[in-house]
C-alpha cells in the first residue's frame, strides 16, 4: 500500500540549518512518497521542529536541495508552501475560536465576488463538501471554539483538504486527543493515504506510530540516525535509536505496594461530576485511573485535592477522616497534585527552578514570614542533581527548559514538600521518551520510599505498565478496580469505553 509511484513527491537532500550556537539540522535527508505515512521521530531538541519549519516555508535552510517531483525548487515562504500543496497542522492550532467552522476552513482564501463581498453560501457549501468527503459530521455554522479539541483538530485538517493539499504535515496531532478521537483521526489519515496524499506524522507516542506509520525517519542531535525507506517498525529499536543507547526496559516498573491502606475515598461526590465513588490507596502503591477523556478522572483528582467541594462522602487519611476546604489543607495533609497541563497551571515561568520547587512549601521555608533563601538554594541544588534536571534551571527561569525538565521540576516541588500521596495527572504528556523513562524511575523512587501515587494517563500502555492496580472510571465514578497485570490494552479500552454515550470533553482540557 505504500508506493504508487517510484518518484518521491518531495525529496529533501542534505538540509542543514544552524541557529546561533547550535546546528539544528545537519545534512538531513527525507523522502516523502505519495500515498505514504512517514513518521518523523526524535526527542525534544533533536531538530524536528526545525525540519517542519523548513518544509512549511517558515524558514530557509542554510544549505541543501529540495526536490519536488524530482525537480529542484525553493519553498520561499508559507504561501509558497501552500501553492505547492503543502499543508501544516501545527501543535498549537491556528483555529480562530470565535469564527464558524466554514469561515475557519476558508480563512485567508475566502471566495469573494468582484466587489470583494464574501460569498457566504459558497463557503458553507464548499466547507460542507470538504467535511462530507472526510466523513466528518460537524455543522459548518458551528462556532469553532465550542467544538472539542478533537473536532478542532479535524477542522484544522479540513483546511488542508480544502486547499487540496498533496502533502500534509502533522505536528503532534494526538497530544490532546482521547483514544477514540485518535482512532477517528487515524481512519481519516488512512483514507487520505489511499488517495495518494503524502503525510508526515510527528509524534512522541510510539504506540501510535506503530499503528499508523509506514516508514520512519529518526533524528538525534540534528542528524538522521535511522533513514526512511526501512518499512519495518519496531518500537524497541525506535526507542534505542532516538535515545542513542539501549535503554533496556521501556517501563521499568518496580513492585513496591504494601497492604497498608493510607487513603480512602468513601462515596465522594462533587458538583463537577464526581458521582459517589469509593476507592482506597495503599502505601507504596501506584493506583492507575483509566478511562476516556471526560470520564471524570481529573474531577476525582480535584475532589481529593480540595479544589472542588465535596457534596457527599468523606476522605480518610491514615485511618482518620479529613476535610479539605481548599488546596492548602490537602497540601498540609501531605497530598500533592501534579496537574495535567504544566504550562497552564503547573509552572511559574517567571521563577527559576528554586521558586518553582518551593512554591508549595513557603510556610515551612520561612520564619516569621522571612524566607530562608539559603535553605531554598541548597534544596534546589540537591533536587536538580538527584532528578538530573538541567543545571541551567538554577540560573534561568523555567521557560528556557525542555518539557521533560519542566515536568521534573513540578514533581520536585512535591518532593520538597514531602508529600505522601501524589496525584500525577498525565505526567508524561508531551515529553520525550528519555524524559518519560526518567519520570517512571521517579515514580519507582517515590513508591520505594513508601509514598503512594494516583496515576492518570491516557497512554494505556503506560498506565498498564506503571500501575499496580487500575481503577476504571466512567461517568465520574470508579466502576471496578483490577490488578494491572490482569488487564490488557484492549480490555482497558473496552472497559473504559461506553458505547451508549459519546464522551464529553473534560472541562479543563
Amino acid at each position, binding site marked *: 500500500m505504500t508506493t504508487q509511484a517510484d518518484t518521491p513527491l518531495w525529496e529533501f537532500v542534505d538540509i542543514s540549518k544552524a*541557529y*546561533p*550556537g*547550535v546546528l539544528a539540522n545537519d545534512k538531513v535527508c527525507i523522502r516523502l512518497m505519495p500515498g505514504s505515512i512517514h513518521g518523523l521521530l526524535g526527542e525534544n531538541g533533536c531538530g524536528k521542529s526545525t525540519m517542519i519549519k523548513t518544509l512549511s516555508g517558515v524558514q530557509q535552510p542554510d544549505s541543501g536541495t529540495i526536490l519536488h517531483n524530482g525537480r529542484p525548487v525553493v519553498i520561499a515562504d508559507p504561501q509558497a508552501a501552500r501553492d505547492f500543496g503543502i499543508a501544516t497542522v501545527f501543535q498549537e492550532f491556528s483555529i480562530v475560536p470565535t469564527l464558524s467552522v466554514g469561515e475557519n476552513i476558508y480563512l485567508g482564501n475566502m471566495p469573494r465576488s468582484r466587489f470583494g463581498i464574501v460569498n457566504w453560501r459558497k463557503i458553507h457549501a464548499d466547507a460542507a463538501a470538504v467535511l462530507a468527503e472526510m466523513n466528518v459530521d460537524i455543522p459548518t455554522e458551528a462556532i469553532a471554539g465550542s467544538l472539542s479539541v478533537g473536532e478542532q483538530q479535524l477542522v484544522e485538517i479540513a483546511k488542508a483538504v480544502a486547499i487540496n493539499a498533496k502533502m500534509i504535515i502533522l505536528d503532534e496531532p494526538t497530544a490532546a486527543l482521547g483514544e477514540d478521537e485518535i482512532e477517528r483521526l487515524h481512519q481519516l489519515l488512512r483514507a487520505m493515504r489511499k488517495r495518494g496524499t503524502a503525510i508526515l506524522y510527528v509524534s512522541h507516542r510510539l504506540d501510535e506510530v506503530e499503528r499508523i506509520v509506514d516508514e520512519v525517519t529518526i533524528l538525534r542531535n540534528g542528524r538522521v540516525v535511522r533513514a526512511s525507506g526501512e518499512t519495518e517498525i519496531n518500537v524497541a529499536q525506535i526507542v534505542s535509536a532516538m535515545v542513542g543507547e539501549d535503554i533496556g526496559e521501556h517501563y521499568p516498573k518496580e513492585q513496591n505496594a504494601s497492604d497498608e491502606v493510607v487513603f480512602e475515598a468513601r462515596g465522594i461526590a462533587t458538583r463537577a461530576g464526581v458521582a459517589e465513588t469509593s476507592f482506597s490507596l495503599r502505601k507504596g502503591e501506584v493506583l492507575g485511573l483509566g478511562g476516556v477523556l471526560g470520564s471524570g478522572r481529573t474531577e476525582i483528582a480535584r475532589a481529593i*485535592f480540595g*479544589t472542588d467541594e465535596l457534596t457527599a462522602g468523606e476522605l480518610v487519611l491514615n485511618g482518620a477522616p479529613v476535610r479539605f476546604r*481548599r*488546596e*492548602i489543607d*490537602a*497540601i*498540609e495533609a501531605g497530598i500533592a*497534585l501534579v*496537574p495535567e497541563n504544566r*504550562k*497552564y*497551571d*503547573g*509552572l*511559574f*515561568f*517567571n*521563577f527559576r527552578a*528554586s*521558586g518553582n520547587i*518551593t*512554591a*508549595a512549601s*513557603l*510556610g515551612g*521555608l*520561612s520564619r516569621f*514570614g*522571612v*524566607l530562608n*533563601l*539559603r535553605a531554598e*538554594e541548597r534544596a534546589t541544588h540537591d533536587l536538580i542533581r538527584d532528578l538530573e534536571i538541567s543545571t541551567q534551571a538554577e540560573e534561568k*527561569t523555567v*521557560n*528556557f527548559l525542555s518539557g521533560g525538565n519542566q515536568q521534573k521540576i513540578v514533581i520536585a*516541588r512535591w518532593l520538597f514538600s514531602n508529600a505522601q500521596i501524589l496525584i500525577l495527572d498525565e505526567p508524561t504528556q508531551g515529553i520525550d521518551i528519555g524524559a518519560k523513562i526518567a519520570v517512571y524511575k521517579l515514580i519507582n523512587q517515590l513508591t520505594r520510599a513508601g509514598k503512594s501515587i494516583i496515576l492518570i494517563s491516557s497512554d494505556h500502555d503506560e498506565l498498564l505498565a506503571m500501575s499496580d492496580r487500575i481503577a476504571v472510571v466512567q461517568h465520574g465514578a470508579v466502576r471496578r478496580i483490577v490488578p494491572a497485570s490482569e488487564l490488557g490494552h484492549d480490555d482497558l479500552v473496552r472497559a473504559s469505553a461506553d458505547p451508549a454515550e459519546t464522551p464529553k470533553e473534560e472541562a479543563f482540557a
Partner: protein
Amino acid sequence: MKRVFDTQLIGPFAAMVIVAVIVALTTDRFLNPGNLSNLFLQVSIVALIAIGATVVIFAAGIDLSAGSMVALLTMILAQMLKFMGIPLVLAIPLILVVGGVFGLVLGLITAYGRIPSFITTLAALIALRGLALTFNNGSPIFSLDPALEPIFYGKIAGIPMPAFYLLFFYGLAAFTMNFTKLGREIYAVGGNPAAAVLTGINVKKVQTITFVVAGFMTAVGAILMSARLNSGSPNYGQTLELQAIAAAVVGGASLAGGRGNILATFMGAMTIVIVQNGLNLNAAPSSVQNIVLGLIILLAVGIDMWRAEISTLMARILGRGKGAEAAPRRKEA
C-alpha cells in the same frame, strides 16, 4: 539567592543616567544644587506612590485610583486639621489607615468580586475625585497646620526628610519582595495565578493585600502632598496614577505580572521626573509635558513587549553565541 541588586536594575539605571546626561548637556541650570534638591523633592511623592502601583502590577493587577485618592485624602486631612480639631499626630496615622481601608475595599471588590482591577480602580478614579469635591463645597482648604510643612521641607543633618521616607519605604518594599513569603507569593500570583492556587497560595488574599499596600502608599503620598502645599484640594494628584504606573513600567515591571524589581521603580520615577524637570527648565508648556509623558509610557511598554526581540538583538550585537529564546509568556487564551 534571589538578588536584590540584579541585572534587572541595569536597564532602568542606564535609562536614568542617559536621560540625566542629555538634560544636563542641554540645560545649564539642571546641575544647580537648588534644582537638584528640588528634583529630589519632586520625585518623592511619585516614587512613594509608585511602590504601591508596582506591587499591584507584580500581582498582575493595575491601580488607576491613586491620583483621585490623593485628592480625597488631602481633603479629609484638611477637614480633620482645620475643622474637626484633630491634632496632627493623630490625623496622620488616621489618614494612613483610611488609605489602607480604601485599598482594602478596592482589593476585595477586585479579588472576591471578580471585577478586573482595571475597572475597579477606573471606577474609583472617577468616583473618588467626585467624593473629594463634596468636601468644603469643592474648594481647596489652605493653611492647615504650621507643623505640617516640616514633614516635607524639614531636614535632618542637612538631608531633606523625603529622602528618609524613600529610604525607609523602598528598603521595606525591597526586603518584602525579595526575602519574605508574602513577596514570593505576590510574584507567584502575578506569574501564574492558576498554578498559585494549586500550590496552596491564597490568591485572592494576596491580590487584596497588594491593593492595601497601594492604598497605604497613596496615603503616604497624600500626606506629603498636603505638607508640601500646606493645604488640601480636590484637584491635587491629577495623572499621578499614570506617573506612578509609568515609573513602574519604565523600571521594567511587566504589566503581565510576576516580573520586575521594586528598586527599579525608583529609577523609573527618577527618569520621568528628570525629563519633566528638563522640560520645565526649558519653559516647555504643560501640554508638551503631557505629550512626552505619553510617549515615555508607550516606549516603556514597547520595551516590555519587544523584550525577546531586544535581547536577541543585544545578544547578536554583543556577539554571544546563543540567541536568546523567546519567552513563551503571552497566552492566546
